[in-house]
């Protein structure tokens, strides 16, 4: 132990300047994230669809770009729960699907305003998340995973039969196996037709108002998630993941924080689900099926659970493979198998996913070059 470091005056001054530097560095980081996100979101459609060489390989189209962003929002929120808090839910389709159906019903029976659809869809998802979180978080570990799966399946089966119509009437609620088809959209804010193009930047195509609308929410998702991670909650989440018992024993109400993590992730899923309805103008019954829960799990882990941007890449890769690779000759039929295999490889060999790949490669390289032994 160093005796000199304990003179009060010296340490406090040293600590304050160090603190200030760190504060500035991090605040800087937040705006960096924001700027990078904006640039990325603006450039994405162009890169995906029209850029020379790149787009030729990617064969992107606008509808897919929008879909990628929607799932990215879902995955970012899911990562807060899985990657940061360490809780694996297999039932998040419950929030995605419920928000999708809710906003669809809003558009069919109330108003086609996209903003109201997202708002109400999300509010309902949050309420559901509070309820399901309260019920499933009483036990940890595998019980949580199984219970979330069970509740989501329960909702699926209810939606396929009992809730197909509003109780006591013939008005479609979920419309059962055929999916909800009565979605009708109004122009955004009463002014912007969603399938009209936004003004271009530097003469290059950016996207339609539809894409823009979704991109705004994606931007919000990224910066809000980043802020949450930098807040006390972010630290508590990570602590819970690393050592739940110890977190309780420093005096934190672990259960409440877990519930908040669950609700926050449900909120993101709700926004994404509502946007999905706006995007596809149709809600398939499969939105509530375990496969949808499984997809967001794969996307998150593939992209890199425990990182902010990883899940975005995970969503992009997954959807690209599902929609583009599946149409390619010879390997097309194997798209799902390929994703499954890559997923398994990631879990076994590259636990940090795509986002952690550069580090993994660096470590592997270091290991290989050290195999020669010391001189």
């Amino acid at each position, binding site marked *: *132990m160093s005796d000199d470091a304990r003179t009060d005056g010296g340490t406090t001054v040293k600590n304050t300047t160090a603190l200030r530097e760190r504060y500035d560095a991090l605040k800087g980081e937040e705006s960096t994230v924001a700027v990078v996100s904006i640039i990325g979101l603006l450039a994405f459609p162009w890169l995906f669809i029209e850029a020379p060489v790149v787009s030729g390989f990617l064969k992107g189209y606008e509808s897919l770009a929008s879909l990628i962003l929607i799932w990215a929002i879902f995955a970012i929120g899911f990562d807060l729960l899985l990657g940061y808090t360490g809780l694996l839910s297999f039932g998040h389709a419950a929030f995605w699907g419920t928000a999708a159906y809710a906003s669809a019903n809003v558009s069919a029976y109330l108003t086609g305003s996209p903003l109201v659809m997202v708002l109400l869809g999300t509010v309902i998802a949050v309420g559901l998340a509070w309820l399901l979180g309260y019920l499933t978080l009483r036990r940890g570990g595998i019980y949580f995973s199984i219970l979330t799966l069970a509740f989501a399946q329960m909702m699926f089966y209810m939606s396929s039969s009992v809730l197909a119509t509003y109780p006591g009437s013939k008005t479609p609620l979920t419309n059962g196996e055929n999916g909800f088809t009565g979605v009708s959209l109004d122009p955004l804010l009463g002014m912007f037709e969603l399938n009209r193009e936004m003004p271009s930047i530097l003469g290059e195509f950016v996207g339609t108002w539809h894409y823009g609308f979704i991109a705004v929410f994606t931007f919000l998702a990224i910066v809000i998630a980043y*802020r949450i991670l930098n807040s006390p909650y972010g630290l508590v989440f990570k*602590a819970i993941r690393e050592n739940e018992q110890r977190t309780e024993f420093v*005096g*934190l*109400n*672990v259960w409440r924080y877990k519930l908040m993590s669950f609700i926050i992730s449900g909120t993101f899923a709700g926004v994404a689900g509502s946007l999905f309805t706006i995007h596809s103008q149709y809600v398939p019954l499969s939105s509530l099926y375990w496969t949808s829960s499984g997809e967001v799990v794969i996307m998150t882990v593939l992209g890199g659970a425990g990182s902010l941007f990883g899940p975005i890449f995970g969503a992009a890769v997954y959807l690209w493979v599902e929609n583009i690779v599946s149409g390619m000759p010879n390997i097309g039929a194997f798209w799902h198998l390929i994703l499954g295999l890559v997923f398994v490889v990631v879990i076994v060999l590259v636990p940090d996913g795509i986002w952690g790949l550069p580090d993994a490669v660096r470590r592997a390289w270091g290991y290989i070059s050290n195999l020669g032994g010391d001189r």
Partner: protein
Amino acid sequence: MPLLELDDVVKEFGGLVATDHVSLDVNEGEHLSIIGPNGAGKSTLINLVTRMLDVTDGDIRFKGDSIVALEPHEVVQRGIGKSFQTASIFPELTVEENAEIAALAAEHGEFRFNFLKHLRDYTEVSDLAHRTLDAVGLLEKVDRRAADLPYGDKRRLEISIALASEPDLLLMDEPTAGMSPEETQSTVDLIEELKEELGLTIVLVEHDMEIVFSVSDRIAVLNRGEIIAEGTPDEVQGDPDVQEAYLGGVEL
């Protein structure tokens, strides 16, 4: 008024009586050690105080108020800290984050909806974290990944986490288990220093008799769930019941 009172505490597991009508007071500012052969129920006692276990009967009072119905985190909030037997740290987090989580709990432990407030705005949290890291001598290693620390440092980190939650009473469950003599000595010195500096009350569960007899103000001897002797080190040393309990194993 004693800081911690155990009042006729009983703990039964099925038919097994792990804690048998234990009454014990811990006074503010003192260093009480609890010793006893293996299986005497020392850890059970600690777990009852921290509310990891429920008492079957009896009361436990801290600062005059009963704590037997509280949740573990509430007990910590009241001012009881525990240092674990194995270094119970947060492996993937940095040393700084390890201390910060405890400091956060100390400064802003009550649950609130502050998930949009930047952590760096809470300067008192990082101040407290740095102070406790400094106190255990880990300030230079703030950015290291906790899992990468050597075992001795992990134990110091463990203690700093317990300290950063600013406890009035610190329960230490065999803090020198598995340590080399040098590490043991420096840990003991550290504990002594902290007790002086921070005015802590310490309850220590230990097997190493040298330590126990050199640092304790009072010693309580547990055997088969009951207290068989209690008093100053000298009093306990001479007690025939204590010698019998240890059955000639340890030179007191």
